[in-house]
């Protein structure tokens, strides 16, 4: 698989189909993967592919706008690109998607604690509920040979089970537990920086006229920030899990994202990044959208 990937990159660069290939290379610890940009054929040997390739690389695409690029992408990464294309942030013709069949990536945080020997490392939570190992769109597909790429066993279980459990708690319990979570937020905005969908040149969190929410680390500002972040991703988040992975204080941001994802799916039958021709969720409507909450 890796050789196939490297050869593909060489070919693309040689025939000048792309100016560079964004992919993964081995980190200096010899185990993890880090992003890399390959600009010449000789460098292509640096590319790797395995379960350590956790990150969503789509965020880098915006740094190279209007250049023809190759990108190594898993199924979830491709969903992010589909959303970016539907929002006119990315031109489909500008990217060459090297789709990777994926059996799931590791849970980085847990792997770091247990030490990696490559055998029984649990896969990331996002992979447990992922329904497809093959990307929805690609220009070439690199197949998994190691073992038969399989859809995770849990995929058809109710993937919103954890969200439902949280919903079932009483209002005061919910209020208390989220306050305890948000209290710890240090407003580093790592969740925003890492998100492939957060491309605004000037985030509302950085605006001064008006100041939408306090920049001091109080509960009110933190609460507003987290609600604003989640709302700005409503119908756009593709559950790549990067925000939760990046959060240094471990706020369960995916619980919030998935709550919104679930409501949108149940109320409006919409899923972000699942159809290449769908309009952005909040930029369209249906005359029969539910309105039983309105007087």
């Amino acid at each position: 698989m890796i050789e196939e990937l490297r050869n593909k990159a060489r070919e693309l660069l040689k025939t000048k189909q792309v100016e560079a290939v964004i992919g993964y290379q081995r980190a200096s610890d010899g185990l993890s993967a880090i992003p890399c940009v390959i600009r010449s054929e000789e460098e292509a040997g640096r590319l790797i592919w395995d379960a350590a390739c956790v990150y969503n690389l789509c965020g880098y695409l915006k740094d190279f706008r209007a250049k023809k690029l190759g990108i190594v992408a898993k199924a979830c990464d491709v969903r992010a690109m589909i959303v970016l294309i539907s929002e006119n942030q990315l031109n489909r013709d500008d990217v060459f998607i090297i789709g990777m069949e994926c059996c799931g990536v590791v849970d980085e945080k847990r792997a770091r604690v247990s030490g990696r020997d490559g055998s029984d490392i649990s896969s990331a939570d996002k992979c447990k509920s992922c329904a497809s190992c093959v990307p929805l769109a690609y220009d070439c597909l690199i197949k998994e040979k190691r073992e038969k790429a399989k859809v995770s066993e849990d995929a058809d279980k109710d993937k919103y089970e954890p969200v439902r459990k949280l919903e079932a708690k009483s209002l005061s319990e919910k209020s208390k537990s989220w306050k305890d979570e948000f209290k710890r937020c240090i407003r580093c905005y790592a969740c925003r920086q890492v998100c492939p969908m957060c491309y605004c040149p000037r985030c509302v969190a950085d605006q001064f006229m008006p100041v939408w929410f306090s920049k001091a680390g109080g509960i009110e500002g933190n609460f507003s920030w987290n609600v604003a972040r989640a709302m700005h991703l409503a119908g756009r988040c593709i559950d790549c899990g990067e925000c939760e992975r990046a959060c240094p204080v471990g706020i369960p941001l995916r619980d919030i994202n998935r709550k919104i994802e679930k409501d949108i799916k149940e109320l409006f039958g919409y899923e972000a990044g699942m159809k290449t021709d769908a309009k952005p969720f909040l930029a369209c409507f249906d005359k029969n959208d539910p309105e039983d909450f309105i007087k």
Partner: protein
Amino acid sequence: MINPRTQELKNSRAESWEPKIAAFLCNWCSYAGADLAGTSRREYPPNIRIIRLPCSGRVNPLFVLKCLMDGADGVLIAGCHTGDCHYSEGNYYARRRFAILKKLFEFLGIDPRRFQMAWVSASEGDKWVKVVKELVEEIKKAGPILAKS
């Protein structure tokens, strides 16, 4: 946890608390509806602070958040009935957006009574009065927002 300014507000309000409610009304229907209630001398509780906007589609979820975090006990958004929006479809967009926000608030432990929406047309002065009366009652039951934080 609470900033000093809001703490001050909280103390001053402790004895004779009356809810403060921010209401975003679209210019073409709901504002005219509220105006009609006024010109027809209908009485309703004075707890509401009306902010006039061109359309319910103009309401940004950040407006709602800012109100609630800066001490409003409740927020109301009112617009034209669907199909009647002056800009044809503004309220359809608003409806989608706030269906999600309302559910998210509840998920995060904010009393869903604190955030409500209503369609009020220019001829529905009576409906406006009813909506406000009910809303104020409900927010009174929900209590001051700061006591909850």
